[in-house]
Protein backbone atom coordinates (compact mmCIF):
# COMPACT_ATOMS: atom_id res chain seq x y z
CA UNK A 1 0.00 0.00 0.00
CA UNK A 2 1.72 3.15 -1.16
CA UNK A 3 -0.99 5.68 -0.30
CA UNK A 4 -4.00 5.69 2.01
CA UNK A 5 -6.16 7.11 -0.80
CA UNK A 6 -6.01 3.75 -2.58
CA UNK A 7 -7.39 1.92 0.44
CA UNK A 8 -11.00 0.67 0.34
CA UNK A 9 -13.36 0.25 3.28
CA UNK A 10 -12.71 -3.14 4.90
CA UNK A 11 -9.07 -3.26 3.80
CA UNK A 12 -6.22 -3.26 6.28
CA UNK A 13 -2.82 -1.62 6.62
CA UNK A 14 0.19 -3.91 6.72
CA UNK A 15 0.38 -5.45 10.21
CA UNK A 16 3.42 -4.91 12.36
CA UNK A 17 4.63 -7.55 14.80
CA UNK A 18 6.81 -6.15 17.58
CA UNK A 19 9.83 -7.84 19.07
CA UNK A 20 9.06 -9.59 22.38
CA UNK A 21 8.60 -6.94 25.09
CA UNK A 22 11.84 -6.49 27.04
CA UNK A 23 12.58 -4.75 30.32
CA UNK A 24 14.88 -2.40 28.45
CA UNK A 25 11.98 -1.32 26.19
CA UNK A 26 10.06 -0.26 29.27
CA UNK A 27 13.03 1.40 30.96
CA UNK A 28 13.62 3.40 27.77
CA UNK A 29 9.95 4.39 27.59
CA UNK A 30 9.97 5.40 31.26
CA UNK A 31 12.96 7.66 30.60
CA UNK A 32 11.60 9.11 27.35
CA UNK A 33 8.09 9.74 28.68
CA UNK A 34 8.84 10.62 32.30
CA UNK A 35 6.41 7.96 33.53
CA UNK A 36 8.39 6.30 36.30
CA UNK A 37 5.57 4.30 37.88
CA UNK A 38 7.68 1.37 39.17
CA UNK A 39 5.15 -1.33 38.22
CA UNK A 40 6.54 -0.94 34.70
CA UNK A 41 10.19 -1.52 35.57
CA UNK A 42 10.72 -3.09 39.01
CA UNK A 43 9.55 -6.66 39.73
CA UNK A 44 9.04 -6.22 43.48
CA UNK A 45 6.88 -3.13 42.96
CA UNK A 46 4.74 -4.95 40.39
CA UNK A 47 4.28 -7.85 42.83
CA UNK A 48 3.39 -5.47 45.65
CA UNK A 49 0.69 -4.09 43.37
CA UNK A 50 -0.72 -7.60 42.98
CA UNK A 51 0.64 -8.21 39.47
CA UNK A 52 2.46 -11.38 38.38
CA UNK A 53 5.29 -9.24 36.99
CA UNK A 54 6.05 -5.87 35.44
CA UNK A 55 3.64 -4.66 32.78
CA UNK A 56 4.16 -2.33 29.82
CA UNK A 57 2.97 1.26 30.06
CA UNK A 58 -0.37 1.47 28.23
CA UNK A 59 1.05 4.55 26.50
CA UNK A 60 4.04 2.51 25.25
CA UNK A 61 1.70 0.22 23.34
CA UNK A 62 -0.46 3.15 22.21
CA UNK A 63 2.67 4.94 20.97
CA UNK A 64 3.76 1.84 19.06
CA UNK A 65 0.33 1.37 17.49
CA UNK A 66 0.41 4.84 15.90
CA UNK A 67 3.43 3.90 13.79
CA UNK A 68 1.14 2.03 11.38
CA UNK A 69 0.40 5.54 10.04
CA UNK A 70 3.81 7.26 10.27
CA UNK A 71 4.97 6.70 6.70
CA UNK A 72 1.89 8.47 5.24
CA UNK A 73 2.94 11.85 6.67
CA UNK A 74 2.78 13.62 3.30
CA UNK A 75 -0.87 12.62 2.85
CA UNK A 76 -2.32 13.77 6.14
CA UNK A 77 -2.16 13.33 9.90
CA UNK A 78 -3.89 11.59 12.79
CA UNK A 79 -6.62 14.02 13.77
CA UNK A 80 -8.19 11.85 16.48
CA UNK A 81 -6.75 8.84 18.23
CA UNK A 82 -8.76 7.16 20.96
CA UNK A 83 -7.84 4.00 22.81
CA UNK A 84 -9.24 1.78 25.50
CA UNK A 85 -6.65 -0.21 27.44
CA UNK A 86 -8.20 -3.67 27.57
CA UNK A 87 -5.52 -6.01 28.80
CA UNK A 88 -2.07 -5.97 30.35
CA UNK A 89 1.11 -6.44 28.34
CA UNK A 90 3.76 -8.51 30.11
CA UNK A 91 7.47 -9.13 29.50
CA UNK A 92 8.14 -11.33 26.45
CA UNK A 93 4.66 -10.80 25.05
CA UNK A 94 4.61 -10.52 21.28
CA UNK A 95 2.30 -7.74 20.22
CA UNK A 96 0.81 -7.37 16.77
CA UNK A 97 -0.50 -4.00 15.59
CA UNK A 98 -3.45 -3.77 13.20
CA UNK A 99 -5.58 -1.16 11.47
CA UNK A 100 -8.60 -1.61 9.20
CA UNK A 101 -10.42 1.10 7.27
CA UNK A 102 -13.96 1.33 8.61
CA UNK A 103 -15.37 4.40 6.92
CA UNK A 104 -14.38 6.98 4.33
CA UNK A 105 -15.92 10.44 4.21
CA UNK A 106 -14.37 12.98 1.88
CA UNK A 107 -10.95 13.58 3.36
CA UNK A 108 -11.60 11.74 6.65
CA UNK A 109 -10.58 8.09 7.01
CA UNK A 110 -11.86 6.25 10.07
CA UNK A 111 -9.82 3.20 11.10
CA UNK A 112 -10.39 0.53 13.72
CA UNK A 113 -7.04 -0.02 15.40
CA UNK A 114 -6.02 -2.92 17.57
CA UNK A 115 -3.08 -4.43 19.42
CA UNK A 116 -3.23 -8.16 20.21
CA UNK A 117 -0.87 -10.44 22.10
CA UNK A 118 0.49 -13.86 21.07
CA UNK A 119 -2.70 -15.53 22.34
CA UNK A 120 -4.78 -13.31 20.10
CA UNK A 121 -6.14 -11.40 23.10
CA UNK A 122 -6.91 -7.72 22.53
CA UNK A 123 -4.75 -5.53 24.75
CA UNK A 124 -5.58 -2.17 23.16
CA UNK A 125 -8.50 -1.20 21.01
CA UNK A 126 -9.69 2.03 19.51
CA UNK A 127 -10.03 4.32 16.54
CA UNK A 128 -7.93 6.59 14.40
CA UNK A 129 -9.52 9.39 12.42
CA UNK A 130 -7.03 10.24 9.72
CA UNK A 131 -7.32 13.66 8.10
CA UNK A 132 -6.11 13.80 4.50
CA UNK A 133 -4.83 17.08 3.09
Amino acid sequence: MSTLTELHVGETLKEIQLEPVSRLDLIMYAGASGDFNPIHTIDEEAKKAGLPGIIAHGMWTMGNLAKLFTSYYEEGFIQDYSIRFKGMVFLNDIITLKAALKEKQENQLRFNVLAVNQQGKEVLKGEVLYHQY
Partner: protein
Amino acid sequence: MFKEQIGKQSNKVKNVVERGAVKKFAVAISDAHPIYVDEETGRLSRYRANIAPPTFPRIFDYGEIEGLNLPNKGLIHGEQTFHYERPLVIGEEINCYTKVKNYFEKKGNFGEMGFLLIESYGEDLSGKLIFSSTSTIVISEAVRKVLAR
Protein backbone atom coordinates in the same frame (compact mmCIF):
# COMPACT_ATOMS: atom_id res chain seq x y z
CA MET B 1 -12.63 13.78 47.38
CA PHE B 2 -12.30 14.19 43.60
CA LYS B 3 -15.79 15.52 42.90
CA GLU B 4 -15.00 19.00 44.21
CA GLN B 5 -12.04 19.18 41.79
CA ILE B 6 -14.25 19.13 38.67
CA GLY B 7 -13.65 22.22 36.54
CA LYS B 8 -10.35 23.15 38.20
CA GLN B 9 -7.45 23.85 35.90
CA SER B 10 -3.72 24.46 36.06
CA ASN B 11 -1.86 27.58 35.05
CA LYS B 12 -0.38 27.49 31.55
CA VAL B 13 3.20 26.28 31.31
CA LYS B 14 5.44 27.04 28.35
CA ASN B 15 6.98 23.94 26.74
CA VAL B 16 9.29 23.47 23.78
CA VAL B 17 8.99 20.58 21.35
CA GLU B 18 12.65 19.62 21.75
CA ARG B 19 14.51 17.76 19.02
CA GLY B 20 16.38 15.52 21.48
CA ALA B 21 13.23 14.67 23.43
CA VAL B 22 11.36 13.79 20.23
CA LYS B 23 14.18 11.52 19.10
CA LYS B 24 14.37 9.76 22.46
CA PHE B 25 10.60 9.29 22.45
CA ALA B 26 10.48 8.04 18.85
CA VAL B 27 13.24 5.52 19.61
CA ALA B 28 11.41 4.36 22.77
CA ILE B 29 8.30 3.45 20.74
CA SER B 30 10.57 1.98 18.02
CA ASP B 31 9.34 4.51 15.48
CA ALA B 32 12.49 6.51 14.73
CA HIS B 33 11.11 7.45 11.31
CA PRO B 34 13.08 10.10 9.35
CA ILE B 35 10.09 12.51 9.53
CA TYR B 36 10.67 12.62 13.31
CA VAL B 37 14.48 12.49 13.46
CA ASP B 38 16.14 13.41 10.16
CA GLU B 39 16.50 17.16 9.49
CA GLU B 40 16.75 16.82 5.71
CA THR B 41 13.57 14.69 5.53
CA GLY B 42 11.77 17.27 7.64
CA ARG B 43 12.99 20.17 5.51
CA LEU B 44 11.84 18.50 2.29
CA SER B 45 8.44 17.51 3.73
CA ARG B 46 5.21 19.53 3.50
CA TYR B 47 5.88 20.67 7.09
CA ARG B 48 9.33 22.12 6.17
CA ALA B 49 10.46 20.69 9.51
CA ASN B 50 10.42 17.54 11.59
CA ILE B 51 7.23 16.68 13.45
CA ALA B 52 6.52 14.80 16.69
CA PRO B 53 4.74 11.42 17.09
CA PRO B 54 1.02 11.69 18.01
CA THR B 55 1.46 10.39 21.57
CA PHE B 56 4.44 12.69 22.29
CA PRO B 57 2.35 15.20 24.35
CA ARG B 58 2.66 12.67 27.19
CA ILE B 59 5.96 14.29 28.10
CA PHE B 60 4.89 17.94 28.43
CA ASP B 61 4.62 19.84 31.69
CA TYR B 62 0.96 20.83 32.12
CA GLY B 63 1.33 22.51 35.49
CA GLU B 64 -0.29 21.56 38.77
CA ILE B 65 -3.96 21.61 39.62
CA GLU B 66 -4.18 23.00 43.13
CA GLY B 67 -5.66 20.47 45.54
CA LEU B 68 -5.50 17.52 43.16
CA ASN B 69 -3.20 14.95 44.67
CA LEU B 70 -2.79 11.82 42.61
CA PRO B 71 -0.61 9.03 43.92
CA ASN B 72 1.99 7.66 41.50
CA LYS B 73 0.92 4.13 42.39
CA GLY B 74 -2.34 2.23 42.31
CA LEU B 75 -3.93 4.06 39.41
CA ILE B 76 -5.18 2.34 36.28
CA HIS B 77 -5.03 4.10 32.94
CA GLY B 78 -8.36 3.13 31.40
CA GLU B 79 -8.68 5.22 28.26
CA GLN B 80 -6.73 7.82 26.34
CA THR B 81 -7.56 10.12 23.46
CA PHE B 82 -5.66 12.69 21.40
CA HIS B 83 -7.13 15.31 19.12
CA TYR B 84 -4.99 17.33 16.72
CA GLU B 85 -5.63 20.44 14.67
CA ARG B 86 -2.23 19.83 13.03
CA PRO B 87 0.95 17.88 13.89
CA LEU B 88 3.39 19.34 16.41
CA VAL B 89 6.53 20.76 14.83
CA ILE B 90 9.98 20.37 16.34
CA GLY B 91 11.34 23.56 17.82
CA GLU B 92 8.00 25.26 18.39
CA GLU B 93 6.95 26.70 21.73
CA ILE B 94 3.56 25.79 23.12
CA ASN B 95 1.54 26.61 26.20
CA CYS B 96 0.15 23.58 28.02
CA TYR B 97 -2.45 23.27 30.75
CA THR B 98 -4.73 20.63 32.18
CA LYS B 99 -8.22 20.48 33.63
CA VAL B 100 -10.35 18.10 35.69
CA LYS B 101 -13.18 17.35 33.28
CA ASN B 102 -15.26 14.94 35.31
CA TYR B 103 -15.32 12.45 38.16
CA PHE B 104 -17.85 9.74 38.86
CA GLU B 105 -18.07 6.41 40.66
CA LYS B 106 -19.45 3.17 39.33
CA LYS B 107 -19.91 -0.32 40.78
CA GLY B 108 -17.42 -2.74 39.25
CA ASN B 109 -15.76 -6.08 39.91
CA PHE B 110 -13.51 -4.57 42.56
CA GLY B 111 -16.06 -2.51 44.45
CA GLU B 112 -16.92 1.11 43.79
CA MET B 113 -14.51 2.29 41.09
CA GLY B 114 -13.72 5.99 40.66
CA PHE B 115 -13.29 7.41 37.14
CA LEU B 116 -11.31 10.63 36.83
CA LEU B 117 -11.30 12.38 33.47
CA ILE B 118 -8.38 14.74 32.93
CA GLU B 119 -8.26 16.90 29.82
CA SER B 120 -4.99 18.47 28.68
CA TYR B 121 -4.33 21.12 26.06
CA GLY B 122 -1.50 22.50 23.96
CA GLU B 123 -1.82 25.91 22.29
CA ASP B 124 0.47 28.01 20.15
CA LEU B 125 1.71 31.27 21.67
CA SER B 126 -1.21 33.19 20.15
CA GLY B 127 -3.62 30.92 22.06
CA LYS B 128 -4.72 28.77 19.12
CA LEU B 129 -5.35 25.12 19.99
CA ILE B 130 -2.91 22.59 18.50
CA PHE B 131 -3.94 19.47 20.41
CA SER B 132 -6.05 18.26 23.29
CA SER B 133 -6.00 14.92 25.06
CA THR B 134 -8.12 13.13 27.63
CA SER B 135 -6.99 10.51 30.12
CA THR B 136 -9.44 8.35 31.99
CA ILE B 137 -7.87 7.28 35.27
CA VAL B 138 -9.51 4.48 37.22
CA ILE B 139 -9.07 4.67 41.00
CA SER B 140 -10.13 1.68 43.06
CA GLU B 141 -11.93 1.93 46.38
CA ALA B 142 -8.86 0.57 48.18
CA VAL B 143 -6.60 3.31 46.78
CA ARG B 144 -9.15 6.03 47.62
CA LYS B 145 -9.26 4.83 51.23
CA VAL B 146 -5.50 5.19 51.51
CA LEU B 147 -5.69 8.71 49.99
CA ALA B 148 -8.42 9.77 52.41
CA ARG B 149 -6.27 9.02 55.46
